[in-house]
């Protein structure tokens, strides 16, 4: 168990300022011209604190993965700044960026797609050690064996191939590989979504154990709000390219302030029929609008059950602290 929820750690590890990632939409067969842009991430600001797990939730296509990639500069932002410790990553290039990248790793959603099927477990986990010139030969083999041990895999598996493993074991391999370079910060993009329910808990426990032992900081991206509640210290909720609410885990789940967060939480089923029978669901109408052309005003107004006239034409609500570090972007919350 970590204690970050009770002893606030205020030291910032990653700072994101007005981050923006717009993808161009091109048209024309020979003469390509830009006709618009997909506003995948549209100006978000938050900190990730040293040693915490920050959960990032929201519906498909709201920009979670793009945010994760943009922080690590795997996708170059089209606007805004990202700081890692003292360094501005958005200004870093070449060797200095490569050095910084060692400190930050990403775990991708699908353990089947993210492992090269023709490489042995040993070379998969050992590769980052070579790329960063950290270890070779016996030293590398020892380190790989140690890493496999850390993630709870038998070091004998070193010569096996990914297809010989189950989903949960493959995700362990992915985690071992991410840990190889001793990172401080890990962006875990839906690390358990592709796993069976009975296996998910194994990986969640492993990630928490590693955090305690190695002092890791996580950005944990997921759409399963129950898992996020379990693992996170603070939680950020995204909608259509914006973070609409960010708060301490307890505050967010027990006192959600943004109408979208309230609807999202009320939609999550609870495995208890007596509780379910008493629950009032907020059913949102319609679908998420296109990120190419987000609604004017508050971008949630087309689905918001409590929207007022002003939500449609007033400038977009500011993302601001409603008290005790509980950030919300809604005209009705002060």
């Amino acid at each position, binding site marked *: 168990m970590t204690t970050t929820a009770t002893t606030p750690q205020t030291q910032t590890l990653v700072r994101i300022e007005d981050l923006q990632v717009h993808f161009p939409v091109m048209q024309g067969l020979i003469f390509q011209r830009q006709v618009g842009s997909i506003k995948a991430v549209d100006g978000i600001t938050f900190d990730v604190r040293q040693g915490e797990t920050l959960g990032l939730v929201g519906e498909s296509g709201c920009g979670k993965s793009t945010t994760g990639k943009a922080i690590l500069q795997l996708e170059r932002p089209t606007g805004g700044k990202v700081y890692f410790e003292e360094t501005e990553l958005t200004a870093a290039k070449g060797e200095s960026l490569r050095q910084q990248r060692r400190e930050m790793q990403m775990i991708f959603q699908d353990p089947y797609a993210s492992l090269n099927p023709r490489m042995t477990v040993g070379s998969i986990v050992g590769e980052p050690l070579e790329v960063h010139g950290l270890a070779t030969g016996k030293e590398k083999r020892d380190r790989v064996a140690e890493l496999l041990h850390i993630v709870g895999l038998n070091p004998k598996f070193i010569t096996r191939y990914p297809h010989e493993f189950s989903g949960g074991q493959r995700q362990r391999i992915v985690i071992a590989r991410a840990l190889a370079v001793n990172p401080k910060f890990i962006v875990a993009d839906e690390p358990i979504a592709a796993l069976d*329910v*009975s296996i*998910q*808990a194994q990986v969640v426990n492993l990630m928490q154990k590693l955090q305690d032992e190695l002092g890791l900081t996580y950005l944990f991206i997921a759409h399963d709000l129950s898992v996020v509640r*379990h693992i996170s210290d603070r939680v950020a909720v995204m909608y259509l390219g914006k973070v609409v609410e960010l708060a301490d*885990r307890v505050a967010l*789940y027990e006192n959600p302030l943004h109408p979208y967060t309230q609807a999202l*939480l009320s939609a999550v089923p609870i*495995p208890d029929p007596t509780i379910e029978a008493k629950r009032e669901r907020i*059913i949102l109408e319609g679908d998420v609008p296109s990120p190419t052309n987000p609604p004017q005003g508050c971008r949630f107004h087309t689905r918001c059950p409590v929207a007022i006239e002003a939500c449609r034409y007033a400038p977009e609500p500011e993302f601001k602290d409603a008290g005790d570090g509980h950030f919300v972007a809604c005209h009705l919350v002060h």
Partner: protein
Amino acid sequence: MPLLDVKHLQTRFYTGEGVVHAVNDVSFHVNDQETVGIVGESGSGKSMTMLSVMRLIPQPPGKITQGEVMFEGQDLLQLSLPAIRRLRGNRISMIFQDPMTSLNPVLTVEKQLTESIRVHMKLDKVAARDRAIELLEHVGIPAARDRIRNYPHQFSGGMRQRVMIAMGLACDPKLLIADEPTTALDVTIQAQIVELVKRLKEELNMAVIWITHDLSLLASLADRILVMYAGQIVESAPLDQLYANPRHPYTLGLLQSIPRLDEAQKAELKPVDGMPPDLMDYPQGCPFAARCPYVIDRCHTEDPTLEPVSDRPNHAVACWVKPNGAAVLETARAIAH
């Protein structure tokens, strides 16, 4: 008499590498207007069970090797192919996880919907079109009269699933089988679809079988739940019993391994260790034995069959030990607080 009564169903796949024991001696029933949830992890045989019921198993390599599927007084496994085809999409319909695989991408929604209405309900073109529009409105497609001319890709994921449901309902089925209809969708859209099916079920007086790997989802939806593991039904219980007093170690393990939205503590989760058996190398004895914390000697040699729990006629479990799930959950809750 139940609407659907399945007895000792067994389905195998004969592949180059070996025989897959996909469905193993499965027996269950569904009453008129009842909602039965089937829950189990990937590969546990949920889809193959229902595809066997519908006689939709790809054959070869698949083969229904044993069993009886009684529906409205006739054994579906004995019906001729034309007879079973008349039944499918008419008395029984099935909707699938990914609407794109069952909707034809090059035909408009109108074409696909009216087609099956005309065949099954013997309506003319105009009447079939009116019925199709009515159905789309019923499942909540705005501007149905215009949207009916669209192709599937012009709809969002949630809307496509609504179109699928409309197709499933086209002929007033007695039984709707929904195979993970919301797995690919976001929670807010999932909640829309769940509400929709609940409403339609009431209005249309049909029975529903809802397949999912998400035990939480069924808590607001099902009357009764079947838990599948390694191609077997290991527990069958009324809704409240299954969550409050599960008697199979696997059900108990599942309930304890999932974090709950209404539980705050950041303690360790309790995973079910290990993984499911290889269905091509089916274990002797109880298929859960390798992962079971309650295992006894007998479990390794004898496979328990689904039998009623003594004091509860509607609650059946396939386990030699039948631990007291209520007490275990109670203790765990007490420790957490």
